[in-house]
């Protein structure tokens, strides 16, 4: 009570204080007279200058008919001004010269000591890079028997947020989704042991609106067209973004599908296509059924082929349209980790370390090869800048610096590896067109028919 009273009074006091001080200020402003600015004509020629506000500018206070002494004074001022300017200019030139000389000397020193960096500097001192390092070791510790897609995705994404996340929340959320879907299957009298049935249920979770146990609704996952490559914001590619915003793209949607499948103990695989991933799950007859989650359709491999960016060599080297094993998935996670690091810190030897281990896990992992090729390309630019390489002096510099030549040779080698694998770059506009075409081509009626056909395969 007392405290309250005190507070009241003190605030009142502050209020009054404020009010009165403003009042006083107002009164003062009305009473005070502004001091007269002395006229220049009243000053003797050599008296110290007052506030020289108009230095360098024609004075607005100059009377219309200046007296002789005034003119002299003006001239004197201008002279002074000119000299000062000249002095400043000279100083500037000298300073620049000194800087240039210092820079050249440093360059010569650097060249003499061969202090050119032929690889990116490590960013290990930067805040947060250690979380990538620990994520990397965590991923490498996983082997075929302990691999968990949910854990791997969490580890990869959490590195971006400085490992501040808590896996138990995700674990709980995934178990909730899995048990909800399994319960729903049981409610509808569907065999909860059948793999096709489980996959169809996950498909419905992605494509349909469902009422949850607490009465709220789960809406279908939307395709997010905006910045779907994560150029502006790397988080756009993340499963955590898909789960919080209910919209994702061709990277996060299939990964979430696999995570749910893992918790439901359903068998499903990730599949690569040019610039794209989708889902395949096995059918009892030995074949596979595809699911395209961006448009929620049962697509066929022919859609992918029709894009025109799948070469025979790419199929023969199994770059695309093959169900990925756990080892290959881990390779994909490592590639994601490298991409996430690049988005946050740019290129550093750490990227190469991660991507090399991804390629060891899956020698034909084309996204990993592309990251590697970018690494080598940017490394060439990086060296170019230090050695001041231009189109004209390129050949000469290559002769001069064998390591520059080597960097370019290494780059060309990875380029030709990628070409030999059968990779054909797909422009982004065409990718977007292709996704839309696919949506148009499959009419919903046929898709529903396919769903019913699959439903009939389910064992009772």
């Amino acid at each position, binding site marked *: 009570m007392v405290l309250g009273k005190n507070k009241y009074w003190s605030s009142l006091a502050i209020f009054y204080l404020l009010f009165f001080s403003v009042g006083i200020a107002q009164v003062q402003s009305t009473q005070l007279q502004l001091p007269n600015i002395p006229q220049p004509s009243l000053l003797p020629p050599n008296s110290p200058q007052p506030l020289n506000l108009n230095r360098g500018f024609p004075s607005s206070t100059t009377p219309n008919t200046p007296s002789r002494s005034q003119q002299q004074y003006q001239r004197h001022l201008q002279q002074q001004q000119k000299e000062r300017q000249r002095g400043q200019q000279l100083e500037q030139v000298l300073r620049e010269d000194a800087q240039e000389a210092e820079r050249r000397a440093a360059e010569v020193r650097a060249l003499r000591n061969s202090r050119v960096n032929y690889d990116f500097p490590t960013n290990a001192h930067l805040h947060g890079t250690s979380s990538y390092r620990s994520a990397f070791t965590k991923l490498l510790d996983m082997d075929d028997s302990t691999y968990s897609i949910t854990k791997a995705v969490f580890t990869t994404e959490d590195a971006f947020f400085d490992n501040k996340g808590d896996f138990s929340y995700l674990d709980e959320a995934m178990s909730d989704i899995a048990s909800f879907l399994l319960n729903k299957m049981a409610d509808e009298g569907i065999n909860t042991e059948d793999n096709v049935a489980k996959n169809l249920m996950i498909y419905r979770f992605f494509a349909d609106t469902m009422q949850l146990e607490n009465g709220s609704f789960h809406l279908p996952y939307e395709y997010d067209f905006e910045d779907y490559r994560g150029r502006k914001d790397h988080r756009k590619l993340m499963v955590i973004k898909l789960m919080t915003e209910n919209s994702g793209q061709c990277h996060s949607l299939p990964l979430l599908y696999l995570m749910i499948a893992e918790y439901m103990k359903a068998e499903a695989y990730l599949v690569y296509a040019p610039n794209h991933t989708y889902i395949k799950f096995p059918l009892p007859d030995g074949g596979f059924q595809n699911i395209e989650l961006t448009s929620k359709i049962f697509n066929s491999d022919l859609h992918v*082929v*029709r894009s025109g960016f*799948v*070469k*025979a060599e790419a*199929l023969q080297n199994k770059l695309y349209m093959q169900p990925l094993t756990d080892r290959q998935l881990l390779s994909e996670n490592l590639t994601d980790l490298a991409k996430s690091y690049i988005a946050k810190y740019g290129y550093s030897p750490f990227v190469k370390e991660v991507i090399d281990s991804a390629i060891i896990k899956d020698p034909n992992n084309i996204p990993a090869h592309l990251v590697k090729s970018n690494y080598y390309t940017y490394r060439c630019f990086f060296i170019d800048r230090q050695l001041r390489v231009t189109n004209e002096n390129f050949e000469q510099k290559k002769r001069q610096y064998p390591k520059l030549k080597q960097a370019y040779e290494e780059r060309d080698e990875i380029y030709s590896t990628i070409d030999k694998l059968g990779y054909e770059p797909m422009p982004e506009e065409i990718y977007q067109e292709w996704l839309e075409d696919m949506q148009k081509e499959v009419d919903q009626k046929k898709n529903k028919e396919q769903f019913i056909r699959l439903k009939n395969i389910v064992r009772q």
Partner: protein
Amino acid sequence: MKTFLVTILSLLTFGNLHSQIEGSDKIYSEFLYEKVFSRFECALEDSCAMSFKEAVFLVENTYFNETLDRIQFEQQIHDLVVTVSSVVQAHNLIYEGNDYKEVEKYAAIFQVMCDTIAINYGDTIINHLPFTYDFDDIWGYKQWSNMFVSKLLNTRKGNCHSMPLLYKILADQIGTEAHLAIAPNHFYIKQYSQKSGWFNTELTSASFPIDAWYMATGYIHLDGIVNKLYMEALSEKQSLVLCLIDLAKGYQQKFGSKDGEFIQKCIDLGLKHFPNYINALLLKTEVLKVQFFEIMESNYAEYPKEVMHIPEAKSLFDEMELLAKKIHKMGYRRMPREMYLDWLASLREEREKYTNKKISNFKSRN
């Protein structure tokens, strides 16, 4: 009178005289086939060298009982090589890549095969005319020799068998790489360049289709590509196997497959060096089928069921079934032959969609 009767009797008992002559001809012809087979065997086992050109010539010459004019064959190819080199000399191609010299050769061969070229010959100008597609008898049903390179050289009309083969011969002669590649009922050319990676040359329509055309329209199951049944750039040895199977097919055309021993020998040798050569596998099923029908016929059987009690027939049938399953699993699907011409035409209709723009955008300077 007696002699007359004897001749009549002999005619009646031993069939007609014509088949007698055929018989001796057959022995001679079989001798030639055996000779060439051992030549192929030697080459495939790396004991002796054999160029692709020689292999093609041997196959065709053996079919004609060694009556093909070798000097003429060599001369015709030599003339083409001279034309190709003169096109290369002109340096008309605009292409930026370190492999300019190779791509220039590719372009020259393509131009000689598919374009009209004016050649200064002394004071006169001779027009070299392109080779064209022969729509008549594309499968060699009427005349097996319609599939031959020698026929293409003589008539300047060919098909998807003779044209890619000639292209490869020219590439070998000019000293650059060209690989044959297989699509259902079809051959084409695959080459590698720095700027475009692997690319296809389709001589039947003088164009450069992208892989998607073969995949999406050409009755190729994707497993067939993954298992390298189709669309793989063939090595030199695999190309020789291709000729070897052509040899067996020539033999089959001449003598049928009832006596399958020679054909079987070719197939076995071929599959040893090119285990997934689809045409060899298909020929094998065909031979098995004919042999099985033979047994059915000799037993007056109408349905296969009726001869299953014969162990030989049973094993033939099982083998046939196993092979058919294997081929199906590898990704083979039968392409109806009637569809073939429609398929080739589809490239013309959907040129925009299926043309490799990286290649067709190569410009020449004039």
